């Protein structure tokens, strides 16, 4: 299937409901250090500076009044269509008005050798026809809107500063900017063929760099070329190529270039339930995502990115081993204390949280992710050094000691701990891969026999305690009668025979009990949190993968077609979706969904999954 990202939706933007737009109206731009969400009406409603996990300077998506934003739109009623320039993460928005058409190019540029700003966001306007009045308003609100800013001018450029942060907006042919109520604003009129440029420049703990117009445009052109070259180097083929490439580009935006770590999503506290409390900060690197990420990166030929992520991973876990935390900061640190901000939240969904309390939980499935990552990395003919191998050995011993204990599970429930089937299986994955790594000489093998023994014990436990003959399915928790979408992972991690009765029975049970239309709930049980939630899109793609791996390719392909149509107009997905309205819910865009999409596309394309060789 080829997705037509251009003009699939055509929307009238004249009123924001309470200052908010639907989550699916956003597109993502970024530079590998931070990312911005651009609404369909041209407003940048989310940007943290200088990095993903820094405080926001534009946070209107979580507080329309106090959060700050950078609006750019026609000053008269308009309609808008959007697309990414082919093969890039550069966004093109076309505004059509009664008086003419204007195109806006939005990008965060990549640094060059012409004294680039620390972070630079370029908004280039060009009138395509007629004569269109444009208006722009940049309202920076530092530190999630908590810090007041000093407004001033430097060499003719309006600048806002607060503590170690500074931000300026250089403009050319875009009107006469002026400060008003803590915002920089101006209007201009563009006639056909005329161009205007806005460049947001920012600095942290250093003086601002005020960019020149030619240099900024050169960086924009170089950024477009970079993305096109990056895309063309991806080994992407098959019927879902466009979808996979867009996912790959989105994932690349979520990798923090200085360390190689990837955020689960670049946002915080977009609600899983409008008005609800299930609002979490995803701007950290989850261990469990990493095996999917490394798998996807290797498949896509991103060997440098895979290597960086793996070594970041080893460095981060070395600080806490043999205990492995659920998530780490992008710099590899383990401390991410959860706090609440005095913000209104997206459409009143409070609290807005920063940090993530899940870091304190015991989640045994992450060990499976860790060892799967190492196995994938090693299977790609990368060597694991002796010290790292010894660390893996100690972690495998630790798993032997803890797998019998209950945990909080993959979904980070807050009413646990329980004996989650998925966690047990992932402990089996960990010990199975540990033994394989020992056989391959990557990990010291003196305890390999114990790892095999314990892996067998886990399998015996799962097969007896976690199987329901009534449901004809593995269960969510040992001894329970519920199913859980995480069980779809079993064939993905090579547990059991994917075409055998137990796995196909489990897939059928999840399909029967948790699927609503084309999307899948993660479970239908209490989890210690108030409020509801939508269907999880990663689970929906896992269902595609599981169906394909169990041999039901036609059924999987049909589901994939329907899920592909769930993407927003620029090919992105949030964490969840309302099965009735189709509205996006949760943080956006979510890496795990795009990783699951890539895995589903690969499963459907029947590409041999392993082993792979890295040239």
């Amino acid at each position, binding site marked *: 299937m080829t997705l037509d990202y251009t003009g699939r939706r055509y929307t009238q933007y004249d009123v924001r409901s309470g200052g908010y737009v639907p989550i699916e109206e956003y597109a993502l731009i970024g530079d590998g250090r931070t990312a911005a969400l651009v609404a369909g009406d041209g407003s940048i409603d989310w940007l943290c500076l200088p990095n993903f996990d820094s405080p926001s300077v534009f946070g209107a998506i979580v507080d329309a009044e106090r959060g700050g934003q950078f609006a750019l739109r026609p000053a008269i009623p308009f309609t808008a269509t959007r697309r990414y320039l082919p093969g890039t993460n550069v966004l093109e928005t076309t505004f059509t008005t009664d008086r003419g058409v204007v195109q806006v190019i939005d990008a965060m540029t990549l640094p060059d050798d*012409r*004294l*680039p700003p620390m972070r630079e966001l370029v908004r280039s306007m060009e009138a395509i026809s007629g004569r269109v009045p444009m208006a722009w308003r940049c309202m920076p609100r530092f530190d999630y809107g908590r810090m007041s800013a000093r407004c001033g001018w430097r*060499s003719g450029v309006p600048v806002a500063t607060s503590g*170690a942060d500074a931000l300026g907006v250089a403009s050319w042919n875009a009107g006469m900017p002026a400060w008003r109520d803590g915002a920089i604003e101006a209007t201009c009129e563009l006639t056909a063929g005329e161009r205007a440029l806005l460049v947001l420049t920012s*600095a*942290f703990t250093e*003086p601002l760099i*005020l960019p020149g117009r030619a240099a900024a445009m050169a960086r924009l052109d170089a950024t477009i070329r970079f993305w096109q070259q990056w895309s063309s180097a991806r080994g992407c083929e098959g019927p879902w190529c466009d979808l996979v490439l867009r996912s790959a580009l989105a994932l690349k935006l979520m990798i923090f270039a200085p360390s190689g770590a990837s955020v689960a999503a670049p946002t915080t506290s977009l609600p899983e339930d409008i008005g609800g409390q299930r609002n979490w900060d995803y701007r950290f690197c989850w261990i469990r995502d990493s095996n999917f990420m490394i798998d996807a990166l290797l498949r896509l030929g991103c060997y440098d990115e895979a290597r960086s992520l793996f070594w970041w991973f080893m460095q981060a876990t070395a600080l806490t081993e043999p205990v492995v935390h659920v998530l780490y900061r992008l710099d590899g640190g383990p401390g991410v204390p959860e706090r609440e901000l005095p913000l209104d939240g997206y459409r009143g969904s409070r609290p807005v949280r920063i940090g993530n309390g899940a870091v304190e939980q015991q989640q045994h499935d992450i060990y499976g992710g860790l060892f799967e990552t190492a196995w994938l990395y090693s299977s790609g003919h990368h060597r694991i050094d002796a010290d790292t191998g010894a660390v893996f050995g100690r972690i495998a011993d630790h798993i032997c000691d803890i797998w019998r204990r209950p945990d909080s599970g993959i979904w980070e429930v807050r009413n646990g701990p329980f004996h989650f089937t998925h966690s047990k299986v992932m402990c089996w994955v960990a010990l199975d891969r540990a033994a394989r790594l020992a056989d391959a000489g990557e990990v010291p093998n003196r305890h390999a026999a114990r790892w095999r023994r314990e892996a067998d014990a886990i399998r015996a436990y799962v097969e007896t305690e976690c199987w329901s003959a009534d449901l004809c399915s593995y269960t969510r928790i040992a001894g329970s009668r519920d199913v859980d979408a995480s069980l779809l992972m079993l064939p993905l991690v090579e547990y059991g025979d994917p075409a055998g009765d137990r796995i196909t029975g489990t897939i059928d049970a999840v399909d029967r009990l948790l699927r609503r239309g084309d999307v899948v709930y993660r479970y239908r049980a209490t989890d210690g949190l108030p409020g509801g939630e939508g269907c999880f899109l990663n689970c929906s793609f896992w269902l595609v993968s599981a169906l394909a791996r169990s041999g039901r390719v036609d059924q999987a392909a049909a589901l994939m077609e329907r899920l592909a149509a769930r993407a927003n107009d620029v090919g992105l997905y949030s964490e969840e979706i309302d099965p009735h309205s189709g509205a996006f819910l949760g943080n956006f865009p979510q890496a795990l969904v795009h990783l699951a999409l890539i895995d589903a596309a690969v499963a459907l394309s029947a590409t041999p999954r392993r082993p792979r060789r890295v040239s």
Partner: protein
Amino acid sequence: MIASAIAAGFVATLVMTTILRGASELGLTRADLPLLLGTAVSDNRRRARALGYVFHFVFGIGFALAYVAFFHVVGRGGWMVGALLGALHAVFDATVLVNVVLPVVHPRIGTPETAANEIALVEPPGFLLMNYGRNSFLVALVAHLVYGALVGLIARP
């Protein structure tokens, strides 16, 4: 004497740089002297910052030699005289040096009269470095006081 002045200049500059960087990390100032100095000769950020550190240490040692010469001329030295010189030095830097001298020799520093049209400009420091944060002068003053005191302490006449 010269050797001790050079050693004093090196140590004092090292401490001063650490104070400035630490204040920056604490969000007290955006002043970044190595970047400011280095961008005079390079528009490559990494190279500019590296060269800036070299210039900073060269200037730091040069000023230490000047301090020691002053100690000899007045026949007094020690940490108190050094700190006093450091305070004067800070005022000179934050007023004349960065706002009058630097724009003349620095091709990429902005002034109220310039506009960022063709080449990138470094944000001008402003009077008493206020553009880089309200506490910038205070930070610079403390750093220079420590610098002067260390030179006075290490390179006694």
